[in-house]
């Protein structure tokens, strides 16, 4: 049977021990390798996924803790060929180099946008990225990308509301 939850909108039953780390289940059991593992100490944020739309570290969460809840990974953000506005902003603003940290950064960015809206300032974004490490970019373009992505998400939400 396995533990049931919703992954990127689809029901799944993960055949793994309830105490397995969610990140390992996503990658090894369910083959969704977009979510990365960058540290052993719960500090880097490469493993961030959305749990009921809120970013969490999937390396510090057990499979059983997501039973009957909804998990979104980087694979689940785009709609067909259309990137999620936060993904598109990372592309436009060149918010990545090697890309290893990017899935976790995009998730953290979505969390920041949801908490602070489309006009979030640079300082807030920088402060709230404390749980995400990047070895390449120096963060400048990541901050730009998250601000652009937040503005685009806000715009899209307004359009949808009209």
């Amino acid at each position, binding site marked *: 049977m396995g533990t049931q939850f919703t992954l990127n909108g689809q029901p799944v039953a993960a055949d793994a*021990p*309830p*105490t397995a*780390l969610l990140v390992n289940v996503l990658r090894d059991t369910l083959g969704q390798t977009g979510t990365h593992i960058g540290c*052993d*100490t*719960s*500090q880097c*944020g490469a493993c*961030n996924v959305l749990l009921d739309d*809120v*970013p*969490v*570290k999937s*390396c*510090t*969460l*057990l499979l*059983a*803790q997501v039973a009957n809840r909804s998990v979104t990974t980087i694979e689940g953000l785009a709609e067909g060929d259309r990137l999620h506005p936060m993904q598109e902003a990372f592309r436009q603003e060149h918010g990545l180099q090697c890309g290893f940290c990017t899935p976790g950064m995009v998730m*953290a960015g979505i*969390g*920041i946008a949801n*908490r602070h809206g489309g006009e979030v300032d640079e300082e807030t974004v920088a402060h*709230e990225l*404390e*749980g*995400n490490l990047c070895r390449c970019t120096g963060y400048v373009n990541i901050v730009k990308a998250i601000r652009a992505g937040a503005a685009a998400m806000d715009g899209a939400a307004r359009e949808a509301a009209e």
Partner: protein
Amino acid sequence: MSYERPGTLDDAVRLSGTGEDAAYLAGGHTLIPAMKARLRDPDLLIDLADLDELKGLVTDGERLWIGALTTHAEVSQTAGAIPALQQLASLIGDPQVRVRGTLGGSLANNDPAADYPAAVLALDAVIETDRGSHAADDFFQGMFFTALEEGELIRRVGFRIPKRAAYAKFRHPASRYALAGVFVAEFEDGVRVAVTGAGGDGVFRWTAAEEALAAGTDPASIGAPDVGDMSSDIHAGPEYRAHLCTVMLKQAVGGLS
């Protein structure tokens, strides 16, 4: 390793007696990293997630009561009765840590660099458990040790509402834990000052600073705590930590509100 998710507090406590080395699982942001590092290896995890009675905040005039399972993110948004506590919660870890980590987990663990112990001690809190209650002054018993018995479950914590309070923390730049954190609370009947991160035995009340502040001494002229009582590790030596205490004290007093 087995996993249980009891629906009632009684069941949770009963289950804790059934494992060789059972552990409550709250936010998991101390326990799971410790398991990954092979520092902990419980045979039974008792997930508290369904115990709604352990969540949320209420005030009863004198005290702000916060459920053990309330997350740092919730406290940072909703503990308006004590703004300094809101601010403290907003400085814990990062946003992803704050949506999972809980008050009860932080206190049960009593990490010498954790933030909440300073607030609990300075705000003269009461820690209510499944079998009684503990005064803050008796609860913390040295690094990673508390007055909790085997299987004793924290239900909620009652923080005395101060006239004014503030918390100042010098954060370790990588881990975000406190190298030194000073919580100052003013009550009608006196001032309480608690220090986390710096003490060799974990969180402590800085009584010399309490007396000096009560006597109206300028915080800038209050001397450092005894270097011999400070902790020391690769991040900071005892002299530096003692000095940081004076700097954080000044900042906290300057920020009282």
